[in-house]
C-alpha cells in the first residue's frame, strides 16, 4: 500500500523538480558547464551525460572551458577539417555523412572558423597531421552556426543539435556539436543527413583555397607533400 502511494506521488514530484531545474537552468542557476565539460571529457557517452545534466542546449549560453574566448555566436562559421585516412571520402571527392557520427556519442569537434587565428589553425592542422605519413589534410567543410543550430527533424519543434564552446588549451577555437536529448535511434541517420546538408553537402574546400591558402602555405613542406 505504501509503495503504491509512493509510486503515485513520485511522478508529480519528478515533474515539478524537472520543471524547476529547467527554469533555473535558463538563468544559469545550478549549471556548472565548465565542470560538466571536464567531467565528461573522456567519456564514451559524453553527449548523453551533458544532455542529462543540461538539457536543451543549456550550456550553449555559457563558456564550457576556462580557455574559452566566449560562447559560440549564431553568426559564426564552423569549419570541419577533413583528414585522410580517418575521414574517408566518396568517389566524387566529397565527405561522407559518417563524418558526423560523433554527434551521437562523444561530440563532433569543429573549429570556430570566424574567430580562429591563422596561427591557431596552422597549429591545429600541424598537430593532427603529426609524424604519421599517411595522414593527409584534404580540406574543410563549412557551415553557418545558425544553420546548424536551426536543424530540426521533420515534424518536430525541437532542436536536433547543440553547438558548445569547448575550447582547449592548445586549440582555443575548438567547439563541439552534440545531439540533443530529443534524438532517438531512428532519428540519428536523418540527423547525419541534415548536418551533411548544413555543411555544404560534403563539398570539401581544398587547403589551397581555404582562407586563400593562408593556412596551407604555413604548413611544413613535408605536410604539404602528403596531399
Amino acid at each position: 500500500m505504501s509503495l503504491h502511494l509512493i509510486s503515485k506521488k513520485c511522478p508529480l514530484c519528478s515533474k515539478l523538480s524537472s520543471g524547476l531545474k529547467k527554469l533555473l537552468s535558463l538563468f544559469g542557476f545550478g549549471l556548472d558547464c565548465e565542470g560538466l565539460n571536464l567531467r565528461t571529457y573522456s567519456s564514451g557517452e559524453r553527449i548523453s551525460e551533458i544532455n542529462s545534466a543540461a538539457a536543451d542546449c543549456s550550456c550553449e549560453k555559457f563558456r564550457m572551458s576556462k580557455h574559452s574566448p566566449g560562447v559560440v555566436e549564431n553568426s559564426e562559421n564552423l569549419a570541419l577539417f577533413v583528414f585522410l585516412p580517418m575521414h574517408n571520402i566518396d568517389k566524387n571527392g566529397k565527405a561522407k555523412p559518417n563524418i558526423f557520427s560523433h554527434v551521437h556519442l562523444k561530440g563532433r569537434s569543429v573549429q570556430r572558423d570566424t574567430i580562429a587565428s591563422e596561427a591557431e589553425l596552422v597549429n591545429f592542422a600541424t598537430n593532427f597531421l603529426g609524424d604519421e605519413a599517411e595522414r593527409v589534410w584534404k580540406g574543410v567543410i563549412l557551415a553557418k552556426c545558425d544553420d546548424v543550430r536551426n536543424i530540426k527533424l521533420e515534424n518536430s519543434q525541437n532542436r536536433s543539435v547543440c553547438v558548445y564552446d569547448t575550447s582547449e588549451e592548445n586549440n582555443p577555437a575548438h567547439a563541439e556539436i552534440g545531439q540533443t536529448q530529443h534524438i532517438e535511434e531512428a532519428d540519428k541517420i536523418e540527423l547525419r543527413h541534415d548536418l551533411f546538408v548544413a555543411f555544404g553537402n560534403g563539398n570539401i574546400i581544398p587547403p589551397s583555397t581555404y582562407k586563400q591558402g593562408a593556412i596551407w602555405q604555413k604548413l611544413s613542406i613535408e605536410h604539404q607533400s602528403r596531399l
Partner: protein
Amino acid sequence: MSTSLSTVAAAKLFVAIGTLTSPTVSNIPEILEQPTRPVERLTSLASSVLTASPLLATASVNDDIFEYDKSLRQTTVAEKIVGELRQWGLLQADWDGEGASPPSAESIKEAVSFVKLIDDITTPPEPMLLASGHAALYWNIDNLYADIEFLGDGRIGYFIKRNGDKHKGVFAFNQQEMPAVLQALIWA
C-alpha cells in the same frame, strides 16, 4: 615435330582450363572468406580461352597463359565493397584518431550479407564506418540519398530521401533476404 607442338599446346590448354575452376580474388585479404564467383564470368572466361587458340599456340611458357587468365578475372564491385567492409575488422578502437569505438564484427557481418543480396549493383553503395563502430552503406546519386546503418543486433536503421520524399525507420534484418522496403525505396 608439328605433332609434338600440338601436343604441348593441347596440354597447355588442358592445364589452363583446369585452373579456371579456382581463380583467386584480388584485393581481398587472404584471411577473409572468398566470395561466390558469378557463373556468367566463368562462362565467358572459359569461352574466351577456348577461342583464343592462336594466343595459346604461340605462348612460350605456361606463365603467359596464367597472366592472360588473371587479366580476365576482375574483382567485381560487390567484392570490392565486401573487401573494404571486412578489412575494417582489423581496426582497433580510436581508428579515426577522435576516440571512435572499435568496429562491430556483427555489424560488419550484417553489412556484408546485405551487399551480397543486392541484385542491381549498377548504382553501388559506398561503405562507411561510424564512430559507434557500426558499418553503414551510403548512396548519394541524382535524386537518391540513402544511409543504411547495421546496428549489429539483427536490425537496420535507415534514412532515405528520394525525389524529395523522406523515409526513415528501424526494422529487423534476417540476412537471408533483401528487406522489401529498401528494395522499393532504393531500387524503385
